[in-house]
């Protein structure tokens, strides 16, 4: 494996130079998009369809014009080494393709824990790369899968210009042991946790509760509730009275969705049971509402250790607040997405500017928790993958 990688790296310097948003890289993304959105065999893989949609021509154009309208000139950093996660099958592609569009050469280490969708996506990409159209892309991009190997990771770290580490925290710590060049940089995605914020007053008066439930269901159950942006906590905002009412109405409606979709896994149920007992043993007063595919646990606060133990697969902490200032009993610097309903964008912006809702990097309406964006974890990835030249 190492030999193969060294050979690939050795050839990089003799390949033709690449540029941001080159015609070939755009065409590659478009072709991939077309396959992912039109091949009926891929329909069952919703995350692949979502990736295809993200790469649709109009969105690529938008990304390109955003990129080219940046004031300073953005140039490729060079060779990017991506260590990608196993929890979301398509994540490696987003990481890779943004870097590719920004004009970088890439070596992408794929997780061997990836699921079926990753396999399907890989073979689709492989087919495309093997066509004569994309020789140049094939020469400059290598997707590899290798078992934990210090020699390979050390070597790639020592030669890359950008190292992308999709966490969690343990992986980041581990990979950072391998030195990178003084001029190179790390882009790291640490363990993150996300929550949903519901305006109770709004729920009580909502005429579209069934729709809201469906959207929230999608936010929770996509990727087994194990993505960084999957909501694990639901915070009800309002007076005690309206919080109580909204919860009753919402859950009455939401319950209709449970038990209908794929059969809940016994192992998932046991994981949730272990987690609930762990929370109880650590002194959290639990008020549990159990369904085989959803455990709701009422809590008053969450210790930061518990977030890491959260097993996903339909386990939801629930809390009520009267004021935004109470949110910091739950959130911390590891927070990422707030999935909201019943608030306006301006209202939330205002709260952030007022110093409430601190540490939250991303606000999206319910139903959009898992949508990937090129600004992620508070970083504009197109800028992160570029060096910036200024002129005065």
């Amino acid at each position, binding site marked *: 494996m190492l030999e193969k990688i060294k050979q690939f790296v050795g050839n990089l310097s003799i390949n033709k130079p690449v540029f941001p948003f080159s015609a070939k890289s755009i065409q590659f993304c478009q072709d991939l998009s077309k396959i992912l959105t039109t091949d009926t065999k891929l329909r069952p893989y919703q995350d692949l369809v979502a990736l295809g949609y993200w790469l649709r021509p109009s969105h690529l154009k938008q990304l390109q014009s955003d990129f080219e309208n940046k004031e300073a000139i953005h140039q490729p950093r060079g060779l990017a080494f991506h260590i990608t996660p196993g929890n979301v099958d398509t994540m490696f592609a987003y990481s890779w393709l943004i870097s590719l569009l920004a004009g970088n050469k890439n070596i992408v280490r794929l997780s061997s*824990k990836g699921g079926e969708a990753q396999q399907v996506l890989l073979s689709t990409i492989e087919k495309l790369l093997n066509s004569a159209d994309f020789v140049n892309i094939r020469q400059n991009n290598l997707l590899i899968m290798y078992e934990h190997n210090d020699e390979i990771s050390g070597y790639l770290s020592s030669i890359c210009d950008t190292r992308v580490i999709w966490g969690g925290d343990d992986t980041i710590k581990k990979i950072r042991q391998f030195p990178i060049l003084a001029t190179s940089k790390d882009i790291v995605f640490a363990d993150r946790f996300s929550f949903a914020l519901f305006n109770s007053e709004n729920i009580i008066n909502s005429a579209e509760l069934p729709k809201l439930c469906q959207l929230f269901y999608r936010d929770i159950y996509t990727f087994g509730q194990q993505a960084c942006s999957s909501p694990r906590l639901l915070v009800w905002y309002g007076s005690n009275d309206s919080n109580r009412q909204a919860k009753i109405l919402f859950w009455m409606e939401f319950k209709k969705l449970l038990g209908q979709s794929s059969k809940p896994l016994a192992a998932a149920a046991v994981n949730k049971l272990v987690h609930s007992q762990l929370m*109880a043993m650590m002194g959290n*007063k639990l008020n549990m509402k159990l369904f085989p595919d959803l455990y709701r646990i009422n809590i008053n606060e969450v210790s930061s250790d518990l977030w890491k133990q959260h097993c996903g697969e339909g386990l939801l902490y629930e809390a009520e607040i009267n004021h935004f200032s109470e949110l910091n009993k739950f959130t911390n610097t590891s927070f990422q997405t707030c999935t909201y309903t019943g608030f306006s964008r301006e209202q939330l912006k205002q709260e952030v500017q007022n110093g409430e809702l601190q540490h939250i990097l991303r606000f999206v309406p319910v139903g959009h928790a898992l949508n990937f964006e090129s600004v992620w974890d508070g970083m504009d990835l197109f800028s992160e993958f570029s060096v910036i030249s200024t002129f005065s």
Partner: protein
Amino acid sequence: MSKFVIDPFYKLPVYGIAQEEKECLLNDALNQLNNHHYKYCQNYNNLIDSIGFSLTVDTYVEQPYVMARLFKILELKSVVAKEIFKQLNSSGTSSQVVSKIFLNAQAAKVQSKVLAKILLDLFERKQLGKQRLPMLFIEAPDIIKNRNSFSARGAGIQGLSFLGRNHTYALNNDMTLNHKAIDGFIEQFQYEPVLIFGFTFMIWKYFIEVLKKKNKNYSFEQGLLLHSGGWKKLQAIAVDNQEFKHQVKLALGNVSVHNFYGMVEQTGTISIECEAGYLHPPVFSDILIRDPLTLKVKKTGEEGLIQLFSILPESYPGQSLLTEDMGQVIGRDDCVCGRKGQYFKVVGRLAQAENRGCSDTFSE
């Protein structure tokens, strides 16, 4: 506890109590243990209060239970640090996370005593006599090197060794056969009752298969082989209990083979496989089968998670554990082997949902 819950049980026959009566006796002992741990283990106390379990209940079904996996996450104990006499760890083959079980001197003594009682009953049934037997471990001597922190395997060996004499290790520390030791053992004890002990997969891989390859076999005149550990690895190479027994006999002669089921969280109260191939909990312990999704108790013959009761744990709250092993109750009081009480089968481990959380990029 001033008076030990277990004390009256020593006098009872190991498999002589009918299920209905056994449940009454055990339920009462479990209630006492629940209250004991509620008082001395803060984590257990929190659990009971938070989940709303009752400490004193009328039947098995209502007994509060602790998820066995929690012993891998928390240090659960009902004794203060200075009282800890020994710490047991699970072997943790697939994951690096191990269970930690804390014993005070009394708890350690009780475990040995109960294990001895269960095994002596078996020796008697096998007419092996009452004296200590020469003992062959299918293990390397390194396994019991560290006396302060035992793995489950080390603990098993240590627990058994006082029932035997002339302890001999069949393997070298590099897991190759120690021919000299084995030949010496057979020469000396071929014609008397012997006890052989090991872990199922280890016996197969490092002993039976190697002997077979070398075309070597022994003929003990009267041996008893006790083994524990899962069948998963053997199933993968298509070896079942019957084949295992058959091959052991080919390799070792007249040896009767008994599997047993137990876990480090409840060391001492093992369930031994009877002549009919079923596992029997001794008078000190019992099982209940629960549905993994609804947690409702399953009927005889239905598969589910194994909940294990044991009245031994006084230094840690392990008296009622919900495991992730799947099993089924086969029947009660009517096993052809003549032992009373429930008897059961272990089907395997609950298929684990893959944890694909954020932090796993490199833990593969």
